[in-house]
Protein backbone atom coordinates (compact mmCIF):
# COMPACT_ATOMS: atom_id res chain seq x y z
CA UNK A 1 0.00 0.00 0.00
CA UNK A 2 1.12 3.51 -0.78
CA UNK A 3 1.25 5.82 2.19
CA UNK A 4 -0.23 9.26 1.79
CA UNK A 5 3.14 10.76 2.62
CA UNK A 6 4.54 9.14 -0.51
CA UNK A 7 2.32 11.45 -2.55
CA UNK A 8 4.46 14.43 -1.54
CA UNK A 9 5.21 16.50 -4.66
CA UNK A 10 3.72 13.81 -6.94
CA UNK A 11 0.68 15.74 -8.14
CA UNK A 12 0.67 19.20 -9.71
CA UNK A 13 -1.86 21.88 -10.53
CA UNK A 14 -1.21 22.80 -14.16
CA UNK A 15 -4.17 25.00 -15.05
CA UNK A 16 -6.43 27.39 -13.21
CA UNK A 17 -9.33 29.50 -14.39
CA UNK A 18 -12.18 31.55 -13.06
CA UNK A 19 -15.06 33.63 -14.34
CA UNK A 20 -15.80 37.19 -13.43
CA UNK A 21 -17.48 37.44 -10.03
CA UNK A 22 -20.79 39.20 -9.48
CA UNK A 23 -24.49 38.96 -10.23
CA UNK A 24 -25.22 37.09 -13.46
CA UNK A 25 -28.90 36.12 -13.70
CA UNK A 26 -28.55 35.55 -17.45
CA UNK A 27 -26.23 32.54 -17.11
CA UNK A 28 -26.59 29.26 -15.22
CA UNK A 29 -24.08 27.17 -13.29
CA UNK A 30 -23.16 25.05 -16.32
CA UNK A 31 -22.45 28.20 -18.29
CA UNK A 32 -20.28 29.71 -15.58
CA UNK A 33 -18.39 26.44 -15.10
CA UNK A 34 -17.81 26.19 -18.85
CA UNK A 35 -16.21 29.65 -18.91
CA UNK A 36 -13.95 28.78 -15.98
CA UNK A 37 -13.04 25.48 -17.65
CA UNK A 38 -12.15 27.21 -20.93
CA UNK A 39 -9.98 29.68 -19.04
CA UNK A 40 -8.17 26.87 -17.21
CA UNK A 41 -7.64 24.96 -20.47
CA UNK A 42 -6.20 28.07 -22.09
CA UNK A 43 -4.11 28.77 -19.00
CA UNK A 44 -2.15 25.54 -19.39
CA UNK A 45 -2.67 24.88 -23.09
CA UNK A 46 -3.92 21.32 -22.63
CA UNK A 47 -5.82 19.53 -25.40
CA UNK A 48 -9.11 19.28 -23.57
CA UNK A 49 -9.80 15.82 -24.97
CA UNK A 50 -6.92 14.56 -22.82
CA UNK A 51 -8.93 15.35 -19.70
CA UNK A 52 -10.13 12.00 -18.39
CA UNK A 53 -11.19 12.95 -14.86
CA UNK A 54 -14.09 15.19 -13.85
CA UNK A 55 -14.96 16.43 -10.37
CA UNK A 56 -17.92 18.77 -9.91
CA UNK A 57 -19.14 20.61 -6.83
CA UNK A 58 -22.31 22.70 -6.55
CA UNK A 59 -23.11 21.74 -10.14
CA UNK A 60 -26.43 19.93 -10.51
CA UNK A 61 -25.57 17.02 -12.83
CA UNK A 62 -22.09 15.75 -13.65
CA UNK A 63 -23.19 14.11 -16.89
CA UNK A 64 -24.73 17.30 -18.25
CA UNK A 65 -21.50 19.07 -17.28
CA UNK A 66 -19.55 16.49 -19.27
CA UNK A 67 -21.89 16.96 -22.21
CA UNK A 68 -21.54 20.74 -22.04
CA UNK A 69 -17.75 20.46 -22.11
CA UNK A 70 -17.55 17.57 -24.58
CA UNK A 71 -15.86 15.30 -22.04
CA UNK A 72 -16.21 11.55 -21.58
CA UNK A 73 -13.83 10.92 -18.69
CA UNK A 74 -13.06 7.60 -17.02
CA UNK A 75 -13.31 9.04 -13.50
CA UNK A 76 -16.14 11.23 -12.21
CA UNK A 77 -17.06 12.41 -8.75
CA UNK A 78 -19.80 14.77 -7.55
CA UNK A 79 -19.50 16.69 -4.32
CA UNK A 80 -22.29 18.71 -2.73
CA UNK A 81 -22.16 22.49 -2.76
CA UNK A 82 -20.63 22.85 0.68
CA UNK A 83 -17.52 24.97 0.97
CA UNK A 84 -15.66 22.29 2.80
CA UNK A 85 -15.76 20.24 -0.41
CA UNK A 86 -13.00 22.27 -2.08
CA UNK A 87 -10.17 20.92 0.03
CA UNK A 88 -11.73 17.47 0.00
CA UNK A 89 -12.12 17.53 -3.78
CA UNK A 90 -8.54 18.55 -4.50
CA UNK A 91 -7.19 15.80 -2.24
CA UNK A 92 -9.58 13.24 -3.78
CA UNK A 93 -8.49 14.20 -7.28
CA UNK A 94 -4.82 14.02 -6.32
CA UNK A 95 -5.23 10.51 -4.92
CA UNK A 96 -7.30 9.45 -7.93
CA UNK A 97 -4.50 10.52 -10.27
CA UNK A 98 -1.91 8.80 -8.08
CA UNK A 99 -3.99 5.61 -8.13
CA UNK A 100 -4.28 5.73 -11.91
CA UNK A 101 -8.00 6.38 -12.13
CA UNK A 102 -7.25 9.25 -14.49
CA UNK A 103 -4.29 11.23 -15.84
CA UNK A 104 -5.75 14.72 -16.06
CA UNK A 105 -8.54 15.79 -13.72
CA UNK A 106 -10.65 18.92 -14.19
CA UNK A 107 -12.23 20.17 -10.96
CA UNK A 108 -15.21 22.45 -11.47
CA UNK A 109 -17.18 24.57 -9.05
CA UNK A 110 -19.95 27.05 -9.84
CA UNK A 111 -22.14 29.20 -7.63
CA UNK A 112 -25.26 31.10 -8.72
CA UNK A 113 -26.34 32.05 -5.22
CA UNK A 114 -26.31 35.81 -5.76
CA UNK A 115 -28.60 36.01 -8.77
CA UNK A 116 -30.88 33.32 -7.33
CA UNK A 117 -31.15 35.07 -3.94
CA UNK A 118 -29.77 32.32 -1.73
CA UNK A 119 -30.05 33.21 1.97
CA UNK A 120 -28.11 30.42 3.71
CA UNK A 121 -30.71 30.29 6.46
CA UNK A 122 -34.39 29.89 7.30
CA UNK A 123 -36.58 27.41 5.43
CA UNK A 124 -33.90 27.05 2.76
CA UNK A 125 -31.82 24.96 5.17
CA UNK A 126 -34.09 23.39 7.80
CA UNK A 127 -32.43 22.46 11.06
CA UNK A 128 -33.04 21.10 14.53
CA UNK A 129 -32.95 24.53 16.15
CA UNK A 130 -35.36 26.40 13.85
CA UNK A 131 -38.07 26.54 16.57
CA UNK A 132 -35.72 28.79 18.55
CA UNK A 133 -34.86 30.90 15.50
CA UNK A 134 -31.28 29.65 15.34
CA UNK A 135 -30.28 29.33 11.70
CA UNK A 136 -27.49 30.17 9.24
CA UNK A 137 -23.76 29.39 9.30
CA UNK A 138 -23.11 32.99 10.33
CA UNK A 139 -25.06 32.55 13.56
CA UNK A 140 -23.06 29.42 14.36
CA UNK A 141 -19.83 31.34 13.87
CA UNK A 142 -21.14 34.19 16.02
CA UNK A 143 -21.84 31.62 18.74
CA UNK A 144 -18.25 30.40 18.48
CA UNK A 145 -16.73 33.86 18.43
CA UNK A 146 -18.66 34.86 21.57
CA UNK A 147 -17.07 31.87 23.30
CA UNK A 148 -13.66 32.99 22.06
CA UNK A 149 -14.30 36.46 23.46
CA UNK A 150 -15.35 35.02 26.80
CA UNK A 151 -12.54 32.48 27.04
CA UNK A 152 -9.64 34.60 25.81
CA UNK A 153 -10.74 38.21 25.94
CA UNK A 154 -10.61 38.54 22.15
CA UNK A 155 -12.23 41.79 21.01
CA UNK A 156 -14.30 42.74 17.99
CA UNK A 157 -11.64 45.36 17.15
CA UNK A 158 -9.14 42.51 16.86
CA UNK A 159 -11.61 40.59 14.72
CA UNK A 160 -11.93 43.68 12.55
CA UNK A 161 -8.24 43.36 11.67
CA UNK A 162 -9.09 40.18 9.75
CA UNK A 163 -11.68 41.92 7.58
CA UNK A 164 -9.53 45.03 7.12
CA UNK A 165 -6.42 43.10 6.00
CA UNK A 166 -8.38 40.90 3.63
CA UNK A 167 -10.19 43.92 2.15
CA UNK A 168 -6.82 45.59 1.66
CA UNK A 169 -5.80 42.61 -0.45
CA UNK A 170 -9.03 42.76 -2.45
CA UNK A 171 -8.23 46.37 -3.29
CA UNK A 172 -5.07 45.06 -4.98
CA UNK A 173 -6.99 42.41 -6.95
CA UNK A 174 -8.65 43.72 -10.12
CA UNK A 175 -11.07 40.74 -10.14
CA UNK A 176 -12.36 41.26 -6.59
CA UNK A 177 -15.99 42.18 -5.95
CA UNK A 178 -15.32 44.58 -3.04
CA UNK A 179 -12.60 47.10 -3.81
CA UNK A 180 -13.18 50.02 -1.44
CA UNK A 181 -10.82 50.09 1.56
CA UNK A 182 -12.29 49.69 5.04
CA UNK A 183 -11.06 50.58 8.51
CA UNK A 184 -11.51 49.09 11.95
CA UNK A 185 -14.05 51.85 12.61
CA UNK A 186 -16.01 50.85 9.49
CA UNK A 187 -16.12 47.32 10.85
CA UNK A 188 -17.22 48.45 14.30
CA UNK A 189 -20.01 50.62 12.93
CA UNK A 190 -21.33 48.13 10.36
CA UNK A 191 -24.76 46.70 11.14
CA UNK A 192 -25.06 43.55 13.19
CA UNK A 193 -26.24 40.44 11.39
CA UNK A 194 -25.83 38.10 14.34
CA UNK A 195 -24.17 39.91 17.23
CA UNK A 196 -21.31 39.83 18.00
CA UNK A 197 -20.75 39.48 14.21
CA UNK A 198 -21.43 42.37 11.86
CA UNK A 199 -21.87 42.71 8.13
CA UNK A 200 -18.11 42.97 7.49
CA UNK A 201 -17.52 39.66 9.29
CA UNK A 202 -19.66 37.87 6.70
CA UNK A 203 -18.53 36.53 3.34
CA UNK A 204 -19.97 37.82 0.10
CA UNK A 205 -22.64 35.97 -1.83
CA UNK A 206 -21.83 36.21 -5.53
CA UNK A 207 -22.03 34.21 -8.73
CA UNK A 208 -18.98 32.77 -10.40
CA UNK A 209 -17.07 29.61 -11.19
CA UNK A 210 -13.59 28.19 -10.74
CA UNK A 211 -11.66 25.41 -12.43
CA UNK A 212 -8.42 23.64 -11.55
CA UNK A 213 -6.68 21.07 -13.72
CA UNK A 214 -4.44 18.50 -11.99
CA UNK A 215 -2.06 15.89 -13.28
CA UNK A 216 1.08 14.04 -12.20
CA UNK A 217 4.34 15.93 -11.70
CA UNK A 218 5.90 14.10 -14.67
CA UNK A 219 3.11 15.06 -17.08
CA UNK A 220 2.99 18.58 -15.69
CA UNK A 221 6.24 19.49 -17.43
CA UNK A 222 4.52 19.56 -20.82
CA UNK A 223 2.32 22.59 -20.21
CA UNK A 224 2.45 26.33 -20.56
CA UNK A 225 2.79 27.41 -16.95
CA UNK A 226 5.22 26.26 -14.27
CA UNK A 227 3.54 23.46 -12.33
CA UNK A 228 2.60 24.04 -8.72
CA UNK A 229 3.06 20.95 -6.58
CA UNK A 230 0.77 19.55 -3.93
CA UNK A 231 3.44 18.89 -1.32
CA UNK A 232 1.33 17.98 1.66
CA UNK A 233 -2.19 17.60 2.88
CA UNK A 234 -4.08 16.62 6.00
CA UNK A 235 -7.63 15.86 7.02
CA UNK A 236 -9.81 15.49 10.08
CA UNK A 237 -13.60 15.48 10.39
CA UNK A 238 -15.59 16.66 13.43
CA UNK A 239 -19.12 15.32 13.02
CA UNK A 240 -20.42 15.99 16.50
CA UNK A 241 -22.36 18.22 16.92
CA UNK A 242 -23.76 18.08 13.40
CA UNK A 243 -27.21 19.04 14.66
CA UNK A 244 -25.63 22.44 15.36
CA UNK A 245 -24.39 22.90 11.80
CA UNK A 246 -21.08 24.66 11.15
CA UNK A 247 -20.26 24.73 14.85
CA UNK A 248 -17.67 23.29 17.18
CA UNK A 249 -17.35 24.02 20.90
CA UNK A 250 -13.58 23.89 20.53
CA UNK A 251 -13.30 26.02 17.34
CA UNK A 252 -12.19 22.84 15.50
CA UNK A 253 -8.86 23.24 17.26
CA UNK A 254 -8.12 19.49 17.51
CA UNK A 255 -9.06 18.94 13.86
CA UNK A 256 -7.10 21.91 12.54
CA UNK A 257 -4.06 20.86 14.59
CA UNK A 258 -4.28 17.29 13.31
CA UNK A 259 -4.82 18.22 9.67
CA UNK A 260 -2.09 20.86 9.85
CA UNK A 261 0.41 18.46 11.40
CA UNK A 262 -0.27 15.86 8.71
CA UNK A 263 0.25 18.49 6.02
CA UNK A 264 3.44 19.91 7.55
CA UNK A 265 4.93 16.46 8.14
CA UNK A 266 4.10 15.31 4.63
CA UNK A 267 5.45 18.44 2.97
CA UNK A 268 8.44 18.68 5.27
CA UNK A 269 7.84 22.35 5.99
CA UNK A 270 7.14 24.34 9.13
CA UNK A 271 5.37 27.54 10.04
CA UNK A 272 8.37 29.70 9.22
CA UNK A 273 8.43 28.33 5.66
CA UNK A 274 4.83 29.35 4.92
CA UNK A 275 4.79 32.53 2.84
CA UNK A 276 1.01 32.92 2.81
CA UNK A 277 -2.05 31.26 4.30
CA UNK A 278 -5.24 30.85 2.29
CA UNK A 279 -7.91 30.42 4.93
CA UNK A 280 -11.59 29.56 4.44
CA UNK A 281 -12.96 32.91 5.60
CA UNK A 282 -16.68 32.28 5.34
CA UNK A 283 -16.79 34.39 8.51
CA UNK A 284 -13.88 36.32 9.93
CA UNK A 285 -13.56 34.24 13.14
CA UNK A 286 -12.45 31.17 11.16
CA UNK A 287 -9.20 32.98 10.42
CA UNK A 288 -8.50 33.31 14.15
CA UNK A 289 -9.40 29.67 14.71
CA UNK A 290 -7.05 28.64 11.89
CA UNK A 291 -4.07 30.60 13.21
CA UNK A 292 -4.41 28.92 16.60
CA UNK A 293 -5.19 25.44 15.29
CA UNK A 294 -2.28 25.45 12.86
CA UNK A 295 0.02 26.80 15.56
CA UNK A 296 0.98 30.15 14.03
CA UNK A 297 0.20 31.48 17.52
CA UNK A 298 -0.78 29.98 20.86
CA UNK A 299 -4.33 29.19 21.89
CA UNK A 300 -6.26 32.35 22.59
CA UNK A 301 -3.50 34.51 21.13
CA UNK A 302 -4.88 35.02 17.63
CA UNK A 303 -6.45 38.36 18.55
CA UNK A 304 -3.05 39.82 19.36
CA UNK A 305 -1.46 38.07 16.35
CA UNK A 306 -3.69 39.82 13.82
CA UNK A 307 -3.33 43.32 15.29
CA UNK A 308 -1.55 46.09 13.38
CA UNK A 309 -2.06 44.48 10.01
CA UNK A 310 -0.50 41.17 10.98
CA UNK A 311 -2.36 39.40 8.14
CA UNK A 312 -1.66 42.02 5.46
CA UNK A 313 0.95 41.76 2.72
CA UNK A 314 4.23 42.60 4.41
CA UNK A 315 2.81 41.58 7.80
CA UNK A 316 3.57 38.53 9.95
CA UNK A 317 1.57 36.16 7.75
CA UNK A 318 -0.28 37.36 4.66
CA UNK A 319 -3.73 35.75 4.61
CA UNK A 320 -6.07 35.52 1.63
CA UNK A 321 -4.07 37.71 -0.72
CA UNK A 322 -6.89 37.69 -3.30
CA UNK A 323 -9.39 39.18 -0.86
CA UNK A 324 -10.83 35.86 0.26
CA UNK A 325 -14.51 35.13 0.67
CA UNK A 326 -14.94 38.31 2.66
CA UNK A 327 -14.00 40.66 -0.18
CA UNK A 328 -12.94 38.86 -3.38
CA UNK A 329 -15.46 36.16 -4.15
CA UNK A 330 -17.48 33.49 -2.40
CA UNK A 331 -16.12 30.55 -4.31
CA UNK A 332 -16.18 28.34 -1.21
CA UNK A 333 -12.48 27.67 -0.98
CA UNK A 334 -11.90 26.93 -4.67
CA UNK A 335 -10.69 30.43 -5.55
CA UNK A 336 -8.36 30.42 -2.54
CA UNK A 337 -6.65 27.34 -3.95
CA UNK A 338 -6.37 29.11 -7.30
CA UNK A 339 -4.81 32.08 -5.54
CA UNK A 340 -2.26 29.76 -3.92
CA UNK A 341 -1.30 28.55 -7.40
CA UNK A 342 -1.07 32.07 -8.82
CA UNK A 343 1.06 33.30 -5.91
CA UNK A 344 3.50 30.42 -6.45
CA UNK A 345 3.61 31.15 -10.18
CA UNK A 346 4.20 34.80 -9.20
CA UNK A 347 1.34 36.04 -11.35
CA UNK A 348 -0.26 38.25 -8.73
CA UNK A 349 0.91 41.70 -9.72
CA UNK A 350 0.34 44.32 -7.03
CA UNK A 351 -0.57 41.68 -4.46
CA UNK A 352 2.35 39.36 -5.23
CA UNK A 353 4.28 38.04 -2.24
CA UNK A 354 7.99 38.43 -3.02
CA UNK A 355 9.88 35.14 -3.49
CA UNK A 356 6.78 33.12 -2.71
CA UNK A 357 7.75 29.45 -2.26
CA UNK A 358 5.18 27.84 0.07
CA UNK A 359 1.45 28.55 0.37
CA UNK A 360 -0.89 26.74 2.73
CA UNK A 361 -4.66 26.32 2.38
CA UNK A 362 -6.86 25.51 5.37
CA UNK A 363 -10.60 25.07 5.87
CA UNK A 364 -11.68 24.93 9.50
CA UNK A 365 -15.05 23.19 9.09
CA UNK A 366 -16.67 19.90 10.11
CA UNK A 367 -14.47 18.50 7.33
CA UNK A 368 -11.17 20.21 8.08
CA UNK A 369 -8.54 20.04 5.38
CA UNK A 370 -5.18 21.65 4.82
CA UNK A 371 -3.10 21.56 1.64
CA UNK A 372 0.46 22.81 1.23
CA UNK A 373 1.48 23.95 -2.23
CA UNK A 374 5.05 24.62 -3.38
CA UNK A 375 6.76 25.71 -6.59
CA UNK A 376 7.60 22.83 -8.87
Amino acid sequence: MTELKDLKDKIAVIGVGNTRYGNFPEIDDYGLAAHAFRNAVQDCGIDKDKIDGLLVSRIPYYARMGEVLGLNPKWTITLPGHGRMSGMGIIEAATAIAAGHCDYAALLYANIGRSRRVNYGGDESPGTWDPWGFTSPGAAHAMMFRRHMELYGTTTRQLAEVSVSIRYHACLNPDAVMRNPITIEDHESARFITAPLRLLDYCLINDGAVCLILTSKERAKDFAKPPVLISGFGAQETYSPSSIANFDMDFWYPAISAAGKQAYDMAGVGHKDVDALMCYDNFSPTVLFSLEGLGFCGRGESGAFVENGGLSLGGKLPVNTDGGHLSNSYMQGWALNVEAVRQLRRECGARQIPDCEVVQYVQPTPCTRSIIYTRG
Partner: protein
Amino acid sequence: MSYNKPLPRLDTLNKPFWDATKQNRFLLQHCPSCGDTRFPPGPVCPKCLAGEQTWIEASGKGTLESWVDMHRAYWDGYKDELPYRVCLVRLEEGPVVVSNLVDKTENLRMGAPVKVVFEAVTDEVTLPKFTLA
Protein backbone atom coordinates in the same frame (compact mmCIF):
# COMPACT_ATOMS: atom_id res chain seq x y z
CA MET B 1 -52.82 36.35 16.30
CA SER B 2 -51.58 32.96 15.15
CA TYR B 3 -48.02 31.87 15.89
CA ASN B 4 -45.95 32.38 12.73
CA LYS B 5 -42.46 31.25 13.74
CA PRO B 6 -41.00 27.89 12.78
CA LEU B 7 -42.35 24.92 14.69
CA PRO B 8 -40.60 21.61 15.35
CA ARG B 9 -41.03 18.91 12.73
CA LEU B 10 -42.33 16.03 14.80
CA ASP B 11 -41.22 12.54 13.91
CA THR B 12 -41.22 9.17 15.63
CA LEU B 13 -37.81 9.87 17.18
CA ASN B 14 -38.50 13.27 18.71
CA LYS B 15 -42.21 12.89 19.53
CA PRO B 16 -41.60 11.80 23.15
CA PHE B 17 -39.56 14.98 23.70
CA TRP B 18 -42.27 17.29 22.38
CA ASP B 19 -45.02 15.36 24.20
CA ALA B 20 -43.10 15.90 27.44
CA THR B 21 -42.50 19.64 26.99
CA LYS B 22 -46.29 20.06 26.91
CA GLN B 23 -46.18 18.79 30.50
CA ASN B 24 -43.25 21.13 31.31
CA ARG B 25 -40.76 18.27 31.38
CA PHE B 26 -37.39 18.28 29.56
CA LEU B 27 -36.42 14.80 28.39
CA LEU B 28 -33.09 13.55 27.08
CA GLN B 29 -32.62 10.38 25.09
CA HIS B 30 -30.68 7.85 27.13
CA CYS B 31 -28.93 4.58 26.38
CA PRO B 32 -29.81 1.86 28.90
CA SER B 33 -26.79 -0.17 27.75
CA CYS B 34 -23.95 2.34 28.17
CA GLY B 35 -25.57 5.34 29.88
CA ASP B 36 -24.91 7.85 27.06
CA THR B 37 -27.33 10.78 27.17
CA ARG B 38 -28.02 13.12 24.26
CA PHE B 39 -30.14 15.65 22.42
CA PRO B 40 -31.32 15.55 19.66
CA PRO B 41 -32.33 11.87 19.71
CA GLY B 42 -30.92 9.34 17.26
CA PRO B 43 -31.96 5.91 15.95
CA VAL B 44 -29.12 4.12 17.79
CA CYS B 45 -26.70 5.00 20.55
CA PRO B 46 -23.72 6.71 18.87
CA LYS B 47 -21.38 5.27 21.54
CA CYS B 48 -22.37 1.58 21.69
CA LEU B 49 -24.86 1.32 18.78
CA ALA B 50 -27.58 -0.18 21.00
CA GLY B 51 -30.92 0.17 19.25
CA GLU B 52 -33.21 0.27 22.22
CA GLN B 53 -33.10 3.81 23.61
CA THR B 54 -35.08 5.30 26.49
CA TRP B 55 -35.69 8.77 27.89
CA ILE B 56 -34.70 10.37 31.19
CA GLU B 57 -35.97 13.59 32.66
CA ALA B 58 -33.37 16.34 32.84
CA SER B 59 -33.11 18.66 35.84
CA GLY B 60 -33.56 21.65 33.55
CA LYS B 61 -30.43 23.22 35.05
CA GLY B 62 -27.33 24.11 33.11
CA THR B 63 -24.69 26.70 32.37
CA LEU B 64 -24.46 29.32 29.64
CA GLU B 65 -21.84 28.33 27.07
CA SER B 66 -22.50 31.14 24.59
CA TRP B 67 -25.16 33.43 23.22
CA VAL B 68 -25.90 35.58 20.17
CA ASP B 69 -28.42 38.24 19.23
CA MET B 70 -30.09 37.61 15.89
CA HIS B 71 -30.55 40.91 14.06
CA ARG B 72 -31.88 39.43 10.84
CA ALA B 73 -35.25 37.76 10.40
CA TYR B 74 -34.78 34.59 8.36
CA TRP B 75 -38.48 33.95 9.03
CA ASP B 76 -41.14 36.67 8.80
CA GLY B 77 -42.38 35.76 12.27
CA TYR B 78 -39.28 37.33 13.81
CA LYS B 79 -39.49 40.63 11.96
CA ASP B 80 -41.18 42.48 14.80
CA GLU B 81 -38.95 41.28 17.60
CA LEU B 82 -35.43 41.83 16.32
CA PRO B 83 -32.98 41.36 17.82
CA TYR B 84 -33.81 38.13 19.59
CA ARG B 85 -31.44 36.15 21.75
CA VAL B 86 -30.29 32.58 21.17
CA CYS B 87 -28.23 30.75 23.76
CA LEU B 88 -26.09 27.65 23.97
CA VAL B 89 -26.59 25.75 27.22
CA ARG B 90 -24.67 22.84 28.69
CA LEU B 91 -27.18 20.82 30.66
CA GLU B 92 -26.27 19.35 34.01
CA GLU B 93 -26.58 15.90 32.39
CA GLY B 94 -23.94 16.76 29.76
CA PRO B 95 -25.62 17.48 26.42
CA VAL B 96 -25.35 20.94 24.87
CA VAL B 97 -28.54 22.45 23.47
CA VAL B 98 -29.53 25.58 21.59
CA SER B 99 -32.45 27.58 22.92
CA ASN B 100 -33.60 31.12 23.64
CA LEU B 101 -32.43 33.08 26.66
CA VAL B 102 -35.43 35.11 27.79
CA ASP B 103 -33.32 37.64 29.72
CA LYS B 104 -32.60 40.90 27.89
CA THR B 105 -29.62 41.97 30.00
CA GLU B 106 -26.27 42.81 28.40
CA ASN B 107 -24.58 41.67 31.58
CA LEU B 108 -24.00 38.04 30.63
CA ARG B 109 -21.01 35.80 31.27
CA MET B 110 -20.07 32.40 29.97
CA GLY B 111 -20.64 29.88 32.74
CA ALA B 112 -23.65 31.68 34.21
CA PRO B 113 -26.14 29.21 35.73
CA VAL B 114 -29.42 28.95 33.83
CA LYS B 115 -32.64 26.99 34.21
CA VAL B 116 -35.35 25.92 31.84
CA VAL B 117 -38.69 27.71 31.48
CA PHE B 118 -41.52 26.46 29.29
CA GLU B 119 -43.47 28.57 26.83
CA ALA B 120 -46.61 27.12 25.24
CA VAL B 121 -46.45 28.77 21.81
CA THR B 122 -49.36 26.83 20.29
CA ASP B 123 -51.88 24.30 21.56
CA GLU B 124 -49.60 21.59 20.23
CA VAL B 125 -46.11 22.89 20.95
CA THR B 126 -44.38 24.02 24.13
CA LEU B 127 -40.84 25.31 23.67
CA PRO B 128 -38.27 24.92 26.42
CA LYS B 129 -36.35 28.17 26.87
CA PHE B 130 -33.83 29.29 29.46
CA THR B 131 -33.46 32.05 32.03
CA LEU B 132 -30.64 33.08 34.34
CA ALA B 133 -30.93 31.01 37.51
